[in-house]
């Protein structure tokens, strides 16, 4: 550690340039990842709400409604269908308005329609399901969140594409900057490297101090970025809690697991820090490896 700090102190401007470059890239990367995770969590949340609801006319019998439910389940497009009878609807209404006796007095089970709440397997199936329900005899109204889901889906796709492009550009720029700075540092040590190679030092031995410095700067940059980001988030957290008050939890799918991204859990915070640190150290090591590679081949004329 002492050797790393000494080496960094002896090349202060290069070290600062590496730190700044890594800081900027890691901060933007963390922001992108955080926003994307949040957006995916939000999309998952919206998808988990009843996506299509069909309300039936008063005279429609329960048998007909169950028939519609069975038909829908046979299509293979729906994840589940929930039947809400008039009585169920009344119970829900009472629960929702228990603090308002006036509203409760005015409503009886007969007034409220029976309905089916349908959850599609994919958002893409929603228009087909809605079309099908619009043709059902005895329907009163079909409520369909198409616009919300479509907008969220297209927004996610756009952000994902733009983020990926921006991310690639960011990484390429950072790598080039880091490689250029490391080239410069290697050039300053050219005599020593040449001597070491003449004395039989392996490429790994010569590369080691450059790698150690890069990994150290990657770690420090990631930690500083994370600290700053956490500070900003801490300040914004009450406002976000207020804005998202109706949402109890946002989850993202990670294959067999689900990770809660809202409210921010220690696991999610830890995963972000771990990922950011590994990423920072990885990109610094990658750039250093390629920057030193050219100088370390044994030249035989």
């Amino acid at each position, binding site marked *: 550690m002492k050797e790393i700090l000494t080496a960094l102190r*002896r090349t202060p401007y290069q070290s600062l340039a590496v730190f700044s470059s890594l800081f900027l890239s890691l901060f933007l990367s963390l922001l992108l990842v955080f926003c994307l995770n949040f957006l995916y969590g939000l999309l998952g949340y919206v998808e988990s709400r009843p996506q299509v609801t069909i309300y039936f006319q008063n005279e429609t019998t329960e048998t007909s409604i169950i028939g519609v439910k069975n038909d829908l389940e046979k299509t293979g497009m729906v994840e589940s269908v929930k039947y809400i009878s008039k009585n169920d609807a009344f119970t829900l209404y009472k629960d929702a308005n228990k603090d308002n006796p006036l509203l409760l007095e005015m409503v009886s089970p007969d007034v409220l329609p029976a309905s089916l709440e349908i959850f599609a397997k994919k958002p893409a199936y929603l228009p087909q399901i809605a079309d099908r329900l619009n043709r059902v005899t005895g329907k009163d109204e079909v409520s369909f969140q198409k616009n919300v889901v479509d907008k969220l889906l297209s927004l996610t796709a756009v952000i994902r594409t733009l983020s990926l492009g921006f991310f690639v550009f960011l990484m390429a720029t950072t790598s080039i900057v880091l490689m250029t700075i490391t080239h410069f540092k290697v050039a300053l040590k050219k005599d020593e490297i040449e001597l070491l190679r003449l004395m*039989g030092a392996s490429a790994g031995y010569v590369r080691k101090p450059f790698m150690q410095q890069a990994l150290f700067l990657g770690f420090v940059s990631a930690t500083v970025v994370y600290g700053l980001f956490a500070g900003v988030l801490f300040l914004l957290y009450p406002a976000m809690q207020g804005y998202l008050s109706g949402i109890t939890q946002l989850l993202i799918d990670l294959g067999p697991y689900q990770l809660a991204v809202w409210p921010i859990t220690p696991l999610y915070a830890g995963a972000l820090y771990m990922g950011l640190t590994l990423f920072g150290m990885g990109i610094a090591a990658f750039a250093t490896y390629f920057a030193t590679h050219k100088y370390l081949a044994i030249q035989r004329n």
Partner: protein
Amino acid sequence: MIQFENVTKSYPLGTIALEDVSFVIEPNEFTFLVGTSGAGKTTILNLILGYLYPNSGTVIVDDMDISSKKSKKIEELRRHIGVVFQDFKVLQDKNVFENIALGLSIQELPIKKIKEDVREVLNLVGLESKEQYFPVQLSAGELQRVAIARAMCGDRHIILADEPTGNLDPKTTWDIMKIFKKVENTKTIIIATHNTDVVNSMKKRVLVLKKGRLIKDMKKGGYEL
């Protein structure tokens, strides 16, 4: 053992540096390479060090054939060779101890062993009181001693010296040669030099080169061109 067998080396622009040179240097032998500038002395040292490879012929060092351009053994071989340059090549940002320890740290030896070996070789070259000095604080003769100590430290049993006394006054030259004499029976030493007095008085093996050809090989020779 170092063996050159019909070695020819030419440079890209067609200059022939060595032509059909053959010789064998036994372990722990002390050899001078003499000849005018451009005769091929440094080329021989560079071929032994694996810095160059021959256009034809065979170069064998420590039973390793390093004639091929893509020889994989160069790094390993170089860990057994110490090199002394005319311009010392002492690193300015490292002190005497650190400069000498370079060759040992490459072998990733324990710190304790490095300290022992460096102090031993510092005694040999007479710089035991200056291990914390930086190169700017040393004279030319002392710098060359540091370079020699670095070349001799550790498991380096072949010492190649290219004009080691070229920049030194006569008295310092003799001090340096005395260091080489101290280890002459424990290491193979090859010195390329123009210094007539040194070669004549040491009475060691002399290989005389002229325009890339080995023209004389004297067991206890003097400086002849």
